[in-house]
């Protein structure tokens, strides 16, 4: 079985919101759109977004860090929003595991919103139906696009390549390798919903460079000859 998902590297996410805006742009113009915006330039704007970045701090002052946590539908393998839908408008695609809403069957009862423990359902007050991240289903399944572009808009837009996309059930996929080798984890696994989206944790990279490292002849960090010459013949004298 295929289970498409996002793997988000929190280590390199800088909270630039490019994923948020590209998501909104693509989806408001496509199959899932239009996505409502009310009073966008006022003090209290409101609207539908499939992807939001939540920012929180860890640690105590002055040793604090800011974590940017992009969150969209996690496309759970056992999604609690699907069985609760009275009309069956919420469903999970069998071929690729993407959780979707059939907008023609949704009656707008919002019960799925109650059921989602991740708070990822949003009502579109213009179309008056429930909406959520589709993993850009109209893009990833579009065979007319070059294969490299058959990815969600947020993945293509991320300037730091913090977002990976692929099949988490395929052990050889880029996302599975990233989860396996870099400690990828699911958000709140205790709910038992088996979220398909995963996060790669933040970690510190520490590099210790000694003088010896810099002087070694095969030092890859050495960009130029730093030897101090005192009139003796050098290699350049010989070759030129």
């Amino acid at each position, binding site marked *: 079985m295929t289970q498409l998902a996002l793997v988000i590297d929190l280590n390199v996410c800088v909270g630039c*919101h490019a994923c*948020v805006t590209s998501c*909104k742009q693509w989806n408001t113009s496509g199959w899932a759109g239009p996505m*409502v915006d*009310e009073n*966008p330039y006022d003090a209290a*704007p*409101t*609207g*539908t*977004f499939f*992807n*939001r*970045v*939540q*920012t*929180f*701090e*860890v640690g105590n002052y002055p040793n604090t860090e800011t974590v940017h*946590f*992009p*969150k969209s539908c996690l496309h759970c393998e056992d999604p*609690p929003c699907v*069985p*609760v*839908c*009275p*009309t*069956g408008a919420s469903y999970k695609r069998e071929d690729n595991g993407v959780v979707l809403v059939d907008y023609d*069957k*949704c*009656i*707008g*009862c*919002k*019960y799925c*919103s*109650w*059921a*989602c*423990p*991740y*708070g990822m*359902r*949003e*009502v579109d*007050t*213009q179309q*008056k*139906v*429930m909406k959520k991240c589709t993993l850009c289903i109209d893009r990833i399944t579009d065979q007319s696009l070059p294969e490299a572009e058959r990815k969600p808009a947020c993945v293509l837009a991320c300037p730091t390549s913090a977002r990976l996309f692929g099949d988490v059930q395929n052990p050889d996929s880029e996302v599975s390798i990233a989860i396996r080798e870099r400690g990828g984890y699911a*958000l*709140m696994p205790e*709910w038992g919903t088996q979220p398909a989206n995963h996060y790669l944790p933040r970690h510190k990279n520490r590099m210790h460079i000694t003088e010896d490292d810099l002087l070694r002849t095969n030092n890859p960090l050495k960009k130029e000859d730093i030897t101090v010459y005192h009139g003796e013949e050098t290699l350049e004298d010989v070759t030129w």
Partner: protein
Amino acid sequence: MRRIVYREWRIESSRYWSWLAILAVVIAIGGMAALYMEHHGHWVTGMTNSVVWGTPHIFAVFLIISASGALNVASIGTVFDKAFYKPLGRLSGLLAAALLVGGLLILVLDLGRPDRLVVAMTTYNFSSIFAWNIFLYSGFVAVVIAYLWTMADRKGVPYTKPVGIFAFLWRLALTTGTGSIFGFLVGREAYDTAVLAPMFVVMSFAYGLAIYILVLMYSFEQDDRPVGALMLKRLKNLLGLFVSGVLYFTLIYHLTRLYGAQTQNIEHFILVSGGIYTVMFWLGWIILGSLVPLFFIYHPQHGKNPKAIALASALVIFGGLAAMYVLIIGSQAYPLEMFPGKTVVEFGAPGDIGGVVAPYWPSLPEFLLGIGGVAVALLITSVGIRVLQFLPESLADRVVDPHVALAEGRGR
């Protein structure tokens, strides 16, 4: 016991039509409020992506569970063979159907797409408790109409008991289903508990009976029909029992959640630090909605005073609405804890917040829609008792209690 004579509600035409006109205006205002919200979308209300069910749902759920509770009065007469309650059966059935229709109307008009009701009625996902409730609600109206027929038509009398038992079981299923809408939700800390289903059943007993008592007293008083002290005593004692039952379930519900460390935060929110939700819980649900009515009901003097009984019933209704506010709104306003121990300082895109208590304040259109639903229930009841023989001519002690009649006979 004397034969019970039922008569139409014979208040003066001018008063009757004025009453209907007032209800019609309230319904029209409610309808316009629904139209306004439907036209603009829910962003014009207090509802957000965090609080998705607002004030209309408080009224809707309250009316729906009260509907099944109102039918209880008929069930006591038919199912449990308490002859004392038999004269009350017809009004009980009518009120049950009326309250359910009022509640359902609110529910439907508050849907994102009320125009797609036909989709909801034709496309079912049977793993959804919500889909089962659509059956339970529509079936309830059909069962109650059949029940009313068996009570009102001589040909139907042999079927009264079996239909009554079926209706009783159906109403239990209905309230269990309504409670389970919340009880089955694992994603919210306030829910995910089996106790909500029986708690809703007991709540329905209390709220349905409180509404019944008020409607009975008002309609009888307006038409100068007597309600005997014995009848009132029975009804108010029953109300006291049900209100105590609600208190018991409330205590068990909160004790269970206080015991486990996982749910202590939301308990602290509801019971101590939740602002309006804490006030609604203690002042609305517990003090004004339960303890004060119990004081009036069991007080040696006040317990005999019809006005005190009416006040107690009204307070129980207020307490019921407060309970729904805490249960429905409070549990949504409490944030989903995505990052335990961390405070979300920014929520990315505008429009909603995460990680902190969601702001919600009922907007006027939401409130008007809810009141409109109540007016629909009252309109159906008023027309029903006016044109059909639903109300007994008298509920005086000698009519409803054979012992009193016998004693009076001997005295004569």
